[in-house]
C-alpha cells in the first residue's frame, strides 16, 4: 500500500529519536547519573515506530521492560522519560519507578513491566473495558518472545479470543530473553503460529523494516477496531545491546552481532527514504541533529528536576493505618 510521506517521515523520526535516547541514556548510565539500570532497544526501533504510526492517539499501549521507544512513539517526551530514568520528580512516573516501568496514563500509555508477561492479562482487560464501554479504541500489547512461553500468554490471549476483544498482541522477537536464545525456547520457527491455537490471525514480519511493521499492525488494528477481534503480529528483529546496559553478553557470538548491525533498521530505512525521494540527505541529517539536541534538553531537564521527597516517592499507601 502507498504510505503517506508524513507517516514515513514520522516513523523515521521516531526511530532516530529512539536511537538517540538509547545512546544518550546509555552514556548517562555509564557516567553514573541513572541510579538503577536500563534496558535498551537498540536495533528494535522500527517496531516502536511502526506500531506508533499504526495506532490512534486514544488507543491503548501496554508493554514490557524494553520500552523507551514505545513511550516516545506514544508521545511521552524525552524530558519526562529522562527525568524518570534519573529518578526525578518531573519524570513520567514522578520518579517513583525508573526506566523499567515507565508509563503515562494520560496518553493511554500504560507502560512497562519488570516481570515478564504481567502486561498481557492487563491488556486483555483494557480491551475488554473498551468493548464494554462501547468505544472503538484498540489496545496494543507489546511482548517479547520470552513472554510467549509463560502461562499468561496463553490465558490472556485465550480469553481475548473467546470474547473477540479489540486487541493486538505484538511479539517483539529480538531472539534473546536475557541470556536464553529464542531457538532454545520454542520448537517452532514463527511464534505467530501460536495464533492457530486461539483461532485468530497470526502474522510474522521483518521487524527491522518499519514499513512491514506498520502495514501488518495497521491490518491487525483495523481488524480489532471493526469488531473482528484480536490478532498476533510477530516482528522478528535482533537485540543489538545487552539485556541491560551492564550485561557483558558472554553468552553471545560476536558474529551474530556483526551480522545484526549490517541489518539494523535505521540506516536501511534512511537509505530507502532517500532513494525514493521522501527525504534528502540533508533532511535526514537534520532529523538526526534535532534528535541529538532534543536529548541534550532532556538531560538538562532531568538534571534540573528535583528528586521527589520520600513521602512523594511512597505515595499515599497505607499499611496499618485505618484509611477511612
Amino acid at each position: 500500500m502507498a504510505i503517506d510521506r508524513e507517516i514515513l517521515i514520522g516513523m523515521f523520526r521516531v526511530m532516530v529519536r529512539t536511537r538517540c535516547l538509547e545512546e544518550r541514556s546509555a552514556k548517562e548510565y555509564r557516567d553514573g547519573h541513572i541510579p538503577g539500570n536500563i534496558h535498551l532497544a537498540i536495533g528494535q526501533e522500527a517496531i516502536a515506530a511502526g506500531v506508533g504510526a499504526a495506532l490512534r492517539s486514544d488507543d491503548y499501549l501496554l508493554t514490557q521492560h524494553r520500552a523507551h521507544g514505545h513511550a516516545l512513539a506514544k508521545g511521552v517526551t524525552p524530558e519526562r522519560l529522562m527525568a524518570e530514568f534519573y529518578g526525578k520528580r518531573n519524570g513520567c512516573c514522578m520518579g517513583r519507578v525508573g526506566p523499567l516501568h515507565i508509563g503515562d496514563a494520560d496518553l493511554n500509555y500504560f507502560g512497562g513491566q519488570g516481570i515478564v508477561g504481567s502486561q498481557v492479562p492487563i491488556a486483555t482487560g483494557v480491551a475488554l473495558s473498551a468493548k464494554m464501554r462501547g468505544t472503538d479504541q484498540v489496545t496494543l500489547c507489546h511482548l517479547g518472545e520470552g513472554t510467549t512461553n509463560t502461562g499468561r500468554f496463553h490465558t490472556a490471549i485465550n480469553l481475548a479470543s473467546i470474547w473477540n476483544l479489540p486487541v493486538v498482541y505484538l511479539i517483539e522477537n529480538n531472539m534473546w530473553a536475557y541470556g536464553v536464545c529464542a531457538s532454545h525456547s520454542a520448537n517452532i520457527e514463527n511464534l505467530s503460529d501460536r495464533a492457530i491455537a486461539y483461532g485468530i490471525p497470526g502474522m510474522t514480519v521483518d521487524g527491522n523494516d518499519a514499513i512491514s511493521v506498520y502495514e501488518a499492525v495497521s491490518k491487525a488494528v483495523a481488524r480489532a477496531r471493526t469488531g473482528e477481534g484480536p490478532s498476533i503480529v510477530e516482528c522478528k528483529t535482533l537485540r543489538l545491546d545487552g539485556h541491560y546496559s551492564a550485561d557483558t553478553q558472554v553468552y553471545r557470538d560476536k558474529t551474530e552481532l556483526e551480522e545484526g548491525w549490517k541489518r539494523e533498521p535505521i540506516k536501511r530505512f534512511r537509505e530507502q527514504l532517500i532513494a525514493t525521494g521522501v527525504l534528502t540527505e540533508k533532511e535526514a541529517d537534520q532529523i538526526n541533529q534535532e534528535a541529538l539536541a532534543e536529548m541534550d534538553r532532556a538531560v538538562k531537564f532531568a538534571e534540573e528536576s528535583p528528586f521527589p521527597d520520600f513521602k512523594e516517592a511512597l505515595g499515599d499507601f497505607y499499611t496499618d493505618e485505618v484509611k477511612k
Partner: protein
Amino acid sequence: MREIEFTQAIAEAIAEEMERDRTTFMIGTNVGRLGGAMGQLKKIYKMYGPERVRMTPISEDTIVGSSIGAAATGLRPIAEVSFSDFLTVCWDELANQVSKWRWSLGDKFKMPVTITSLTGGGIYTAYQHSQCLEGMLIGIPGLTVVLPSTPYDCKGLLKAAIRDDNPVLFLEHKYFMISRPKSMIPEEDYTIPLGKADIKREGNDVTVVATGLMVHRALAAADRLLGKGITLEVVDPRTLVPLDKQVIFTSVKKTGRLIIVTEECKTGSWAGEVAALVAEEAFDYLDAPIKRVNAPDAPVPYGPAEDLYMPSEEDLIRAVADLTN
C-alpha cells in the same frame, strides 16, 4: 429488619452494587449459571446476563489481570477467584499489579477492583481447598484484606469494598455457606466502613482477637467460660488490613491479656502481626504474655482430621486457662 444468611448477604451486596453503578461487573470461573462454587452468587447471572456477569475459563491470572486493566480504564470489576488457595496462581497480579500499578504510574487512575474468594476449612477437602493464607496476603501494601464473620458484616463490608476505589481482597469463609449463621439486617441500603473493628462480645478478663469462623468459636468459648466467672472480650477486626489497632489496644488496656485466634498456620501469620503490634505499641497494658491459637504449621489434612487441625473452642479455653491461672 429481616434475617439473612451468608449466601444472601453476598448475592444481595453484589446485586445492589451492580444496580447502583452500571460500570460494575463480575468476572470469574464460576459466576455463570452455577452461581458461585458454593451457591453464594445465587441469581446474579440470571439478573444481569453474560455481558455483566462474565464467565471465564480457569485462568486466575487473567481473571485478576484483566480486572486490573478494566479498572484502570473506568470499570469496576468484581473478580471471583473460587478458592483462596487458587490466589497463589495469580500472585503477581496480587502482589505487584492490583496493589501497586496505580502508584507505579503516578496515581493517574483508580483501581476499584474487588476480588472475592472462598477461604478456610469446614468442608473436609484437604490442603488445596481449605487453607487460610492471610499471612501471605497482608504484606502487600495497597491491598485491603477483609474477612467477615456475620452475614450483616459481610453484606455491609462487601458493598463498601465494591464502592472503594482501591483494591480489596474479600475473603468469604466457606464454612458459613453450609453452617448458615444468620443476621438481622436493615431493609435500607447500608455499608460498613473498611478498616473498622467490631467488638462482638464485651468482657473484662481476656481480649480475644478472632477472625472469620474463629469469631464464632471465641463466642462459644466465652459462653462456656461465663459459668467459671471469666469474661472474654471478643474483638473481630473484620478488615485485616488496614487494621483497626486502637480497638485492640483499648481492649487490651482493659483486660491486660491477649489471645489471637485464627485458622492460619502459626508461622508468618496475621495473628503474629497483631501480637507484634501489641508488643510494640501496647506492651505496658499487658499483665501476661500474648498467646496465639492457630493451626499447626502443616498442610490441612483430609476428612475429619481437619477438625483436629482447626483451632477449637477447647484450644481457646485452654489458652484462657493458661493466662488466668
